[in-house]
């Protein structure tokens, strides 16, 4: 006798059955693919949220870093004040457009009265500064060198009476300056500096610089320096203010809170305690908002995703039931005409492999297409970026294949267990029309 039904015979039957029961097979493949897609989307969505969360946390750390004056690198040498200019890479900070010039270092182009007042600007990394106006809905854009603030001697007189002076007097001629005590401290100078000449050099810049004789020290919360005539140029330095937008609206932009000063860590804590908002706190708020989005998003996802998943699983159960009945009856026929029981399991494996093979490309197409569509929608609404790299897609495909393989294995085990103890006669009389 020839060997009954070799593996090619089984493969031939498996392929024939796949073609014969096209409709249920295609439906099975589609449902497998949908389930895979849901799994992939769920993991990607969570990954995107996690990435965004990490990004904002990193930003918060950065913001805190620059918010504290103690972190700013300052150098001072005899007669020279040099303050490190922190540089930013545009590509690194694309989400954080807003820089504060509250903590700016300034140079005086003329021997003059100069003051650096806290302002928020939009820093585009090309040397331009923008000052928010009308509640930050619009911006005035300036070149890197612009007359920012001028305050003449009369105004100085009006603002600071004699009693405002801790030491010394008002400037009376070119080359004479007064410093705020804060600025003095910031430059690591003591009150003994009165009478000495200091030179302020912007790191990395050949010009401008300022040189003047300190003739007085005033009380001020600001980092002020007054000369005889105001004419100043500002350069933004280390302070960054969070402008990351979670949603496509200007809600966060218009909620810019102006920093009053170059906050020390202690001052920042006090300000927060009093309900003031500063850069880092905005990020904290943004994170809270993100948390809310995550809660909302996860809730929606759980409701919709669970409904879809339950629906799909029920569909799978129904279809698997139908598939098992068809297979049982067919197996009864095959065994009646010479198939061994062990070959029935092999045939089932072959048929399920065919199902899996067809499901995987469908899952891939659904996943990639759906991922792009949903990813785009999410990024439009929330500014969350879903990773659409091929690496991610291949990872998803592997995850999808794993899901399909897992389903297939479960499917096989359940089917084989269900049919194992049935006699051929019982298999033959299986009602497939249920």
């Amino acid at each position, binding site marked *: 006798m020839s060997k*009954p039904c070799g593996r090619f015979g089984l493969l031939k039957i498996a392929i024939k059955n796949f073609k014969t029961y096209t409709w249920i097979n295609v439906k099975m493949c589609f449902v497998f693919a949908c389930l895979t897609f849901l799994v992939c989307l769920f993991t990607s969505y969570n990954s995107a949220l996690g990435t965004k969360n990490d990004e904002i946390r990193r930003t918060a750390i950065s913001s805190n870093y620059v918010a504290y004056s103690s972190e700013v690198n300052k150098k001072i040498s005899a007669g020279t004040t040099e303050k490190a200019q922190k540089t930013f890479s545009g590509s690194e900070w694309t989400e954080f457009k807003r820089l504060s010039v509250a903590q700016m270092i300034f140079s005086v182009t003329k021997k003059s009265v100069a003051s650096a007042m806290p302002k928020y600007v939009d820093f585009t990394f090309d040397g331009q500064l923008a000052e928010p106006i009308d509640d930050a809905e619009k911006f005035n854009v300036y070149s890197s060198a612009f007359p920012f603030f001028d305050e003449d001697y009369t105004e100085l007189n009006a603002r600071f009476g004699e009693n405002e002076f801790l030491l010394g007097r008002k400037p009376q001629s070119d080359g004479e300056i007064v410093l705020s005590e804060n600025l003095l401290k910031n430059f690591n100078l003591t009150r003994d500096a009165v009478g000495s000449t200091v030179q302020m050099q912007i790191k990395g810049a050949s010009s401008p610089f300022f040189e003047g004789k300190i003739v007085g020290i005033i009380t001020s919360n600001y980092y002020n320096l007054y000369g005889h005539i105001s004419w100043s140029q500002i350069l933004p330095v280390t302070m960054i203010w969070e402008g990351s937008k979670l949603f496509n609206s200007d809600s966060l932009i218009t909620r810019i809170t102006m920093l009053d000063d170059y906050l020390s860590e202690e001052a920042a804590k006090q300000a927060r305690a009093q309900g003031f908002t500063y850069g880092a706190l905005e990020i904290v708020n943004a994170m809270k908002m993100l948390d809310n989005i995550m809660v909302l998003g996860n809730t929606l996802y759980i409701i919709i995703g669970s409904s879809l998943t339950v629906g799909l699983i029920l569909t799978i159960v129904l279809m698997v039931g139908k598939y098992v009945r068809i297979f049982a009856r067919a197996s009864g026929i*095959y065994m009646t005409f*010479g198939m061994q029981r062990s070959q029935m399991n092999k045939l089932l494996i072959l048929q399920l492999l065919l199902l899996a093979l067809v499901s995987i490309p469908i899952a891939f197409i659904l996943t990639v297409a759906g991922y792009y569509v949903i990813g785009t929608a999410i990024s439009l609404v929330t500014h969350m970026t879903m990773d659409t790299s091929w690496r991610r897609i291949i990872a998803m495909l592997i995850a999808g294949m794993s899901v399909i393989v897992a389903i297939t294995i479960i499917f096989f085990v359940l089917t084989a267990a269900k049919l194992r103890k049935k006699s051929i006669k019982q298999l033959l009389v299986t009602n497939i029309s249920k």
Partner: protein
Amino acid sequence: MIEVVDVVKEYVTSKTTFRALNGASLKIGDGEFVAITGKSGSGKSTLLNILGTLDTMTSGKVYVDGVDISALSGKEVAEYRNKKVGFVFQSFYLEPGYSVYDNVELPLVLAGGRAKNNRPLVEAALSEVGLLSKIKEKAVNLSGGEQQRVAIARAIINNPSYILADEPCGNLDTHNSENIMRILDGLHKNGKTIVMVTHDMEDAQKAGRIIAMSDGKIIDG
């Protein structure tokens, strides 16, 4: 030759035990055309299923050509069903989505036959039942009589010694029944041993021998 010795078949459920065959014994010689008759529940189909190894017996022995079929291994019993016996059922048990050709070819595929060798055999079997013209049709599109003729072609494709037919005319009208009985008679004349279960005495009369069953026992024949 088929020899059935004191075969018992019990169906056990959680509540009851039903004895479908109660010590049935009989002998069927080579080339016989035997009709097994009896009322519903008399055990005639159960006996046929045991002869065909579609079901197992609780006790007893069945010898086919001197071989105890209950002692066959899984592979041997599959070969027995593939080569030694051919089955015809009341409900045809065709694969409805398969073509006539595919249905008839099935035992050849299961026997490990090469596809190019199968076609002449399939065509010959279909010619014998008068359905060669329907070779490409899907089984589901055929009439009941035609489907039963396909089932017969499938049963004889491997040239088995024994044809086991369980109510082959049970779902057919008179015309088709006569047609099927004529085909079975032709097979008998060609040397096949035919064991047919029927409750229709008119069909049974066409067999050479009638075995009557009642309550799981052979009562006549």
